[in-house]
């Protein structure tokens, strides 16, 4: 018998802001829906260890999708006539469209990096309809990652982006996890990481919105790695202070990509938050 992993991947047609998209969705497990968002310039392969973790998939239906333009999801028709630059509005619209199309009720959302940032807006926008959010490396405001070399004709974008983000891993993380993430980054489309960083560095500012999150309706857990210099522990702590009832833990010896750089260590921090989310 072939050694298949328990992950199933499919393509889904979904309308986002009136435009048809072809989005890649993969999932594993049964139970409480847990919808996961990848980092900037990457794709849902970053969650492969989570989707292979039986202790998680025994009680969660883990659903991960590639954002449009990322991984195995296509950009919309006519993409060649626009520069890809993600906005907060577009990001929220894509997440909501995929979630509604899946037809799942009261999901938990989890996202990392820019996905962790948008979790704060997912919580503020949809708090009446979701169980909670787990923000990995979440900042309410995070300028500073942008530079023009990220998409430049004289630079190999894939190699630069992958190398530029390498240092966001903790030095203690296993070589294999860091190298996997490097490879995923190197495979992003031209200018996609730049377009994501534009959202992260310029458009996104949730400092006001987080004050409106009611954790009695929507639980909030925040986890940030001690070696993350893009979203530092201090930046997440500042968010946690603004959300009453929010849980926050700094993850020792982890960087900006906990689910892929060092899953074995990350899961020791994640499991208590999944328990928290599952409890009624």
């Amino acid at each position, binding site marked *: 018998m072939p050694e298949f992993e328990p992950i199933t991947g499919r393509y889904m047609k979904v309308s986002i802001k009136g435009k048809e998209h072809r989005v890649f969705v993969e999932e594993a497990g049964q139970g409480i829906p847990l919808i996961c968002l990848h980092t900037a310039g990457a794709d849902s392969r970053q969650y492969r260890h989570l989707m292979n973790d039986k202790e998680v998939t025994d009680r969660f239906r883990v659903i991960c999708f590639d954002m449009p333009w990322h991984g195995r999801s296509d950009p919309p028709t006519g993409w060649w006539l626009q520069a890809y630059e993600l906005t907060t509005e577009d990001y929220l619209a894509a997440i909501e469209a995929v979630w509604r199309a899946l037809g799942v009720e009261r999901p938990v959302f989890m996202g990392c990096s820019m996905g962790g940032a948008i979790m704060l807006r997912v919580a503020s926008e949809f708090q009446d309809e979701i169980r909670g959010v787990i923000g990995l490396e979440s900042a309410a405001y995070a300028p500073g990652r942008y530079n023009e070399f990220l998409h430049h004709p004289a*630079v190999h974008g894939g190699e630069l982006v992958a190398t530029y983000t390498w240092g966001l891993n903790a030095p203690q993380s296993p070589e294999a996890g860091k190298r996997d993430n490097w490879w995923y980054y190197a495979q992003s489309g031209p200018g996609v990481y730049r377009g994501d960083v534009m959202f992260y560095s310029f458009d996104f500012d949730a400092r006001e919105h987080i004050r409106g999150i009611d954790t009695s309706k929507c639980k909030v857990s925040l986890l940030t790695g001690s070696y993350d*210099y893009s979203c530092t522990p201090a930046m997440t702590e500042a968010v946690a202070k603004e959300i009453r009832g929010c849980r926050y833990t700094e993850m020792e010896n982890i960087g900006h990509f906990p689910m892929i750089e060092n899953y074995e260590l990350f899961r020791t921090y994640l499991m208590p938050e999944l328990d928290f989310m599952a409890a009624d």
Partner: protein
Amino acid sequence: MTNFPDEGWMEAFRETVGRDPELAVISKWFDVDMGLTFGERRYALRVRKGRIEEIIPSPRFDTRTQFQIRGPMDLWKRFLSETPPPLYHDIFAMIMRVPEFVLEGDTLVAMQNARALHRMMSLMRSVGKQHA
């Protein structure tokens, strides 16, 4: 670490770079002239195909380099420590978050060679171990 950053340490760095199997794979086009400043100690490096061909200590101003990386000694020591603290564990982390650590000159050339340059700089930590 006692010899960092004297000329003997730089020679050991050159050897470490020269026998790195990963650089051998990725550095076919890694040809740069670059400056390295450790506190008050300055060097110019001529890198060809990923090998450090020449190390010029205390270069005169007519020794031209394309880009330079400089920082005070205490930052380099943190970077080279066995378990570097957050923000000091990677050159891109320091360039972004530590104002006294500077990449300057033709930064485009540095970024064109980011993968090999980053690998070479990270190998400095291996030299530190040999001299610890």
